[in-house]
């Protein structure tokens, strides 16, 4: 059916033209509107109620505090997008820090120790992914098992000790410098930005990312359209494992000491950030920008409530409420689009 409106310059018929979206809406997507609003409100409230919150130094501090759990949340996002969940991510990261630090102390040059640690985290991701795709076990169960095994492994490996790392590659991400002479930044922030942009690119601009969303949205539909769902799922767990390896590097940059008891709630914190960021626990919707905002919301809440002198228990109350609100919103949206 040819329409008279059609011309070579505008091949789309008027009836099926996509609506114009604002640049902001296109950048963050609708899913990220909620966490963005939450972040703005939190910043305004803390700026008005405390004297110490709204300044450049505290801004830098917030971003630094964001790095480790934020990075864990990036990997977690990949898995939740496929309708999975990763309870083991912080344990993978902690084991990574222990291995990197121990190897770096004694046997290997820092760069090599780092490489071994990151590869180990990636390999553990591959193991989880294989169990999920080959044995068709629920991700919750698989990663619960991996969490348990790795927590014990970390303790056995550390044998009651923690391992300090000396400077060099291993603390490189904690190294500070100043932008325009006054904005404090760390190398870790640069690495986080590269990771964020890289993952955003993969998820939104490549066919791999398409397949990840499709598998999370409806795995059987994805399979019937010829998507290799197993390979896609496995690649998600492998990539997430790699991201946890980077999180281990970030953690050593923040605190140059690998402690088997650190980040015990890192898994739940990362899930919290992802959920507040608007990524659906049912899979197929959400993404990296939302997670970055969600992790920032959690960090700002913690930081701001501390600055306001409020008991840290109230921080947990506040994040808890936010999580429930975010999931409730998700259900409503989901019901509308199904």
């Amino acid at each position, binding site marked *: *059916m040819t*329409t008279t409106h059609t011309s070579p310059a505008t*091949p*789309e*018929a008027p*009836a*099926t*033209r*996509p*609506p114009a979206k604002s640049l902001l809406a296109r950048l963050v997507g609708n899913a990220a509107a909620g966490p963005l609003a939450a972040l703005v409100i939190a910043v305004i409230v803390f700026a008005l109620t405390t004297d110490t919150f709204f300044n450049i130094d505290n801004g830098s501090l917030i971003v630094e505090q964001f790095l480790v759990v934020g990075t864990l949340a990036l990997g977690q996002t990949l898995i939740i997008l496929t309708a999975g969940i990763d309870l083991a991510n912080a344990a993978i990261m902690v084991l990574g820090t222990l291995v990197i630090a121990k190897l770096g102390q004694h046997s290997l040059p820092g760069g090599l120790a780092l490489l071994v640690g990151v590869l180990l985290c990636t390999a553990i991701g591959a193991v989880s992914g294989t169990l999920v795709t080959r044995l068709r076990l629920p991700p919750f169960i698989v990663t619960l098992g991996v969490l348990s095994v790795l927590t014990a492994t970390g303790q056995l490996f550390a044998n009651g000790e923690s391992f300090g790392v000396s400077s060099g590659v291993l603390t490189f991400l904690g190294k500070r410098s100043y932008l325009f002479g006054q904005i404090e930044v760390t190398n870790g922030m640069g690495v986080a930005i590269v990771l964020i942009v890289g993952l955003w690119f993969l998820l939104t*601009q*490549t*066919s*791999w990312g*398409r397949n990840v*969303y*499709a598998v999370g*949205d*409806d795995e*059987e*539909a*994805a*399979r*019937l*359209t*010829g*998507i*290799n769902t197993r390979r896609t799922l496995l690649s998600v767990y492998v990539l997430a494992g790699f991201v946890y390896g980077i999180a281990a590097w970030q953690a050593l940059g923040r605190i140059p000491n690998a402690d088997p008891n650190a980040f015990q709630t890192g898994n739940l914190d990362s899930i919290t950030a992802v959920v507040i960021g608007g990524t*659906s626990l049912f899979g*197929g*919707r959400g993404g990296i920008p939302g997670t970055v905002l969600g992790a920032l919301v959690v960090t700002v809440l913690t930081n701001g409530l501390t600055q306001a002198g409020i008991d840290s228990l109230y921080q947990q109350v506040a994040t808890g409420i936010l999580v429930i609100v975010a999931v409730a919103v998700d259900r409503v949206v989901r019901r*509308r*689009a*199904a």
Partner: protein
Amino acid sequence: MNQPRSDAASAQAPAPHTADVVMSASGLVKRYGNVVAISESDFEIHAGEVLAVVGDNGAGKSSLIKALTGALVPDAGTIELDGRQIHFHGPRDARAAGIETVYQTLAVAPQMDIATNLFLGRPLRREGFLGSGLRMLDHKKMRTQAAEQLDRLGIATIQDITQLVGTLSGGQRQAVAVARAAMFGTRLIIMDEPTAALGVRESRQVLDLITRIRDRGVPVVLISHDMPQVFEIADRIHVHRLGRRVAVVSPRTCTMTEVVGLMTGALQMGADGTLLESTTQHMPDEKATSHRPPESPE
């Protein structure tokens, strides 16, 4: 296996020359535990035809076409495409061979937009290194082509191709799945109840589309419950019952009542292609199931 034979006096569809067979299957079996979804069924579609597949609910029609498109791997039997035996390991293989399917479940992703759904599993990539090296998607081209395609097919009043498929009506979703099949099917298009959720006007548009697809040389398998529809556009009718093909008839020499009779087992097709009253119609009987499909030599 299939020898040409002619029997002008019977209800049986005239068997065309073997060279015309696009896809065929014989002895297909698929079991789900104790349920036999496909029970030694045969299948055959010829060049340039619309083949209707009819049968009661649970007869195994969907399972049959899933076996043909790699969506399930049959326990036994052989499938041939253009005279060569094939083994599809998944839907991807069938799509690569130019076979497109509208599954009964539609196989659409509800939280993705229409344009994305049309290109699901076979996205358009950017030209040059961006596409081949970085595997970057060409979002714009996909949107443009999706809009063009939907307009050209004229099977849906869809205003915005960036609308999420989950927000569409059941009929619109079906239209998206049909459009996708029509867009990519070059060898064979299979539609499993594509008009089930459609209104009168939309059904008409899909039927017209099926005719157009056939006329441009791509055969179509149409699974449908709608007898008038089947009799209007099918060139041959494959009747499925209890997991197997029990007859292939021509809509020109056969009545709707007779086809329904074959579906329910009230009628059987004799070896000579004539229809007989079944005496044991209430039993899921040795007699009806041991009956060879008419095109196989006895």
